[in-house]
């Protein structure tokens, strides 16, 4: 700790195109010691990636840099030509957010990694041997096989492991990790983070870990630097900064991070709503919406495999699962945007047409949707007022456009802006206002916050809770993030490979989770392992191994599954049963319904179930 390996002082980066504006990075100073991990945290656009690029000398040519960047005695900013190339080759490695753009799609993985060794002067046999060793050290299931594959034949998690392997191949003095897990599924993310955590203790590199997520800072870093608009507002040991933030901005960031381990019921900022007394279902005998035996495939890929579920009036249902689990397809089937191969959707007691264009205006008004990507959810050529006016007109709304805007906390002057000029959070507010402009009884929210900054996510979620409470509209909230879903849902449905594997009231599903897949999701979302099996070992403790050895894309297998689709990844599988016998659906205490062979209650023998 005495002599820092990386010393950055007074770093200023300015993009020439923006010369009149403030610099992207404005006088940043920090040190990273050998073997130490410094987290750089901040909202998007705060300059954290620019700092990483400046240090790695990867900025575009129109950026001007001043200040000191010193890595182990080398003045990095002064390097050029052969010296710069040698430095890149020997001393620095960067792992980016999207592994597929970091890998050359035309080269086999093994050759790409071996290239690094070749640059160091090793001959072919040596390079190949080291490559296999390295792929093994990043926990690739079958290194020799992986080495012969092309990047597109690997899952996202495996690709990122390959990129990390290449970064480690040179034993860099400086390792930059730029949001290395942001694009990955929660379960895969956990495996990668475990890997990085394990490696960082073995390496003597200085590590710069860039993220927008304090949760990751807490798990991965020794020290943290909080960045806002190009300047550092605070830095220090992780425990100190998170435990007792000195700057208001840090406190703000920490406060508005998604309240994990929390539900809307115990979120103090929603106390005024009196959520405890929300009637869950006004007419429980007839659900607002039912989906009966819906199946759909995209070509060979099974998206929905005979799903039946209900959504009550005024109920918030969370639909959670990893990408490819079919959750988005289910939401789209309900809205009528995707016409399923089989099955029906009922609104109240009546079956409604599968295609939204064939539905009556009445049933269309009842089901609205909030889409995932803020950038395509609104027509960029329309003004906010037009969007809301039109929605109100077509959906039979009674409240004025001004009131609508006010209900989602849009400023009045934003009404006359083109939607293209709004920020992501503002766009989602307009999108929500559009969905509730009329008499919607159910709003399907398809990952409405996953593309937003963490600081914005929480405000949007609270807004949804409030609107839902005031209007008594039902929500189907689709997300890959269990902590987001558990925050606002009355009931949770967990999807895997096109089937609902577990459903029930939120408290019952989560504490403790019954299905091993729910346990894995829970562990991946940062909660502690809860489930224990017969011999006392924890399921979540076993889960990371499962992700390490099988980080393939979930379910969505080309083969129709005979047994349980989760069989291969399941840490608690019963050999001889799970792979061949379809799991039974069982109703357990507290309204819980699980599709699994495991005996959950002493009274419930699995022989009778199977």
């Amino acid at each position: 700790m005495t002599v820092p390996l990386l010393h950055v002082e007074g770093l200023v980066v300015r993009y020439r195109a923006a010369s009149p504006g403030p610099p992207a990075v404005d006088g940043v100073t920090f040190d990273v010691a050998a073997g130490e991990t410094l987290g750089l945290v901040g909202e998007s656009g705060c300059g954290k990636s620019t700092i990483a690029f400046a240090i790695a000398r990867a900025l575009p040519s129109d950026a001007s840099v001043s200040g000191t960047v010193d890595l182990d005695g080398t003045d990095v900013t002064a390097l050029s030509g052969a010296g710069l190339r040698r430095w890149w080759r020997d001393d620095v490695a960067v792992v980016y957010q999207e592994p597929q753009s970091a890998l050359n799609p035309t080269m086999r993985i093994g050759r790409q990694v071996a290239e690094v060794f070749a640059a160091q002067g090793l001959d072919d046999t040596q390079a190949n041997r080291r490559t296999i060793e390295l792929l093994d050290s990043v926990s690739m299931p079958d290194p020799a096989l992986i080495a012969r594959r092309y990047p597109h034949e690997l899952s996202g998690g495996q690709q990122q492991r390959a990129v990390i392997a290449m970064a480690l191949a040179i034993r860099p003095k400086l390792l930059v990790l730029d949001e290395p897990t942001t694009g990955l599924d929660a379960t895969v993310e956990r495996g990668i983070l475990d890997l990085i955590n394990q490696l960082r203790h073995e390496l003597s590199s200085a590590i710069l870990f860039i993220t927008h997520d304090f949760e990751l800072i807490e798990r991965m870093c020794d020290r943290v630097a909080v960045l806002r608009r190009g300047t550092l507002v605070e830095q220090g040991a992780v425990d100190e900064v998170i435990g007792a933030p000195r700057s208001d901005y840090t406190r703000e960031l920490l406060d508005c991070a998604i309240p994990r381990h929390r539900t809307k019921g115990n979120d103090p900022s929603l106390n005024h709503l009196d959520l405890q007394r929300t009637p869950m279902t006004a007419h429980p005998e007839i659900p607002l919406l039912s989906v009966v035996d819906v199946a759909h495939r995209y070509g060979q890929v099974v998206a929905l495999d005979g799903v039946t579920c209900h959504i009550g009036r005024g109920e918030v249902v969370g639909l959670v699962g990893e990408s490819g689990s079919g959750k988005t397809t289910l939401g789209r089937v309900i809205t009528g945007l995707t016409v399923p191969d089989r099955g029906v959707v009922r609104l109240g007691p009546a079956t409604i047409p599968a295609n939204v264009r064939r539905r009556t205006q009445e049933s269309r008004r009842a089901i609205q949707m909030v889409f995932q990507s803020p950038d395509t959810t609104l027509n960029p050529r329309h003004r906010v007022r037009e969007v809301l006016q039109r929605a109100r007109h077509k959906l039979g709304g009674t409240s004025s456009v001004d009131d609508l805007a006010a209900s989602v906390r849009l400023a009045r002057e934003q009404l006359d802006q083109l939607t293209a000029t709004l920020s992501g959070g503002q766009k989602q507010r307009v999108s929500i206002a559009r969905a509730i402009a009329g008499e919607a009884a159910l709003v399907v929210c398809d990952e409405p916050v996953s593309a937003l900054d963490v600081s914005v996510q929480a405000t949007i979620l609270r807004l949804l809770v409030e609107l839902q409470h005031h209007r008594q509209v039902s929500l189907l909230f689709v997300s890959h993030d269990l902590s987001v879903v558990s925050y606002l849902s009355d009931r949770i449905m967990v999807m895997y490979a096109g089937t609902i594997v577990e459903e029930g009231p939120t408290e019952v599903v989560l504490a403790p989770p019954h299905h091993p897949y729910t346990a894995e999701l829970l562990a991946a979302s940062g909660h502690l392992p809860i489930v224990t099996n017969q011999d006392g070992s924890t399921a979540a403790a076993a889960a990371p191994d499962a992700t390490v050895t099988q980080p393939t894309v979930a379910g969505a297998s080309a083969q129709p599954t005979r047994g349980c689709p989760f069989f291969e990844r399941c840490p608690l599988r019963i050999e001889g049963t799970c792979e061949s016998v379809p799991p039974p659906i069982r109703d357990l205490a507290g309204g819980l319904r699980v599709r699994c062979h495991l005996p959950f209650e002493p009274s419930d023998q699995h022989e009778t179930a199977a």
Partner: protein
Amino acid sequence: MSLESALVGQDVAVASTSPVTRRRRRWTRPTLLGSSVVIVIWIAAAIRWEWIAPFGPSEAQSGGRFVGPGTEHLFGTDGFGRDVLSRVLAGSRPVLTVAPLAVLLATIGGTVLGLILGYFGGLVDGVAMRLLEAIAILPPLFPAILVVALLGSSDTVLILVLAFSFTPIVAWTVRAATLVEREKPFVEAAHLRGEGAGYILGREILPNIAGAVVVEATVRLADAVFALATLAFIGLGAQPGSPDWGAQVADNRVNLQNAWWTVLFPAGAVASLVIAVSLVADHIREWKAP
């Protein structure tokens, strides 16, 4: 993402410079400025060459035949002693009438067709696209030669036949753009609130593909100018002896050896207009690109 995040700063930067500055920067590009000046000159000539041209385009001059370029006759005189400069200026009118009108028709027809085919898809789309492909693979001059040979040449025939040739190409571009737009969530949201095809095509999709349509129209304009000159050159457009650029080149090509100016100046006029329009098209494409 790596590159993208590197560029985030730049995006912000570009957005922070005022639109006025950006517009000024565009206009200071020499190619764009030059092309625009050329186009404006030809448009002015097409509107009122009578005010600019030093002589009547069909008057034989007292100075005689085949006088080289000089102070009296800037572009010289042709085999009938007519002033080449005046003829070149006068020749801009037929070109700048027929080509824009043909392109306007093709753009409207192609846009409507492309929107409908792209949006509805299905069997009609399949059949129509094969048909359009069949038309599009013909060189644009082929139907023109056929029709003009059958019906004789007039401005109306030329406009219609060129519009017919260019419509499939425009429709193609618009259809491709529509296919992209119709999958966007804002279009799905329109379906969810029960909008009809007319609203979705006109208010949701068209404004977002207008840029592509403008680019396409500009490119076709350059094509149309060239096609017209070619038709006149092979004797299927303007009448021989008329001050049309293509016809002038055709009439005088035998004199290329001894009076190059009678061919070079009208040919140069065609080239200058085609190149200028193409360059402007390139610039529009650049602005419209995301």
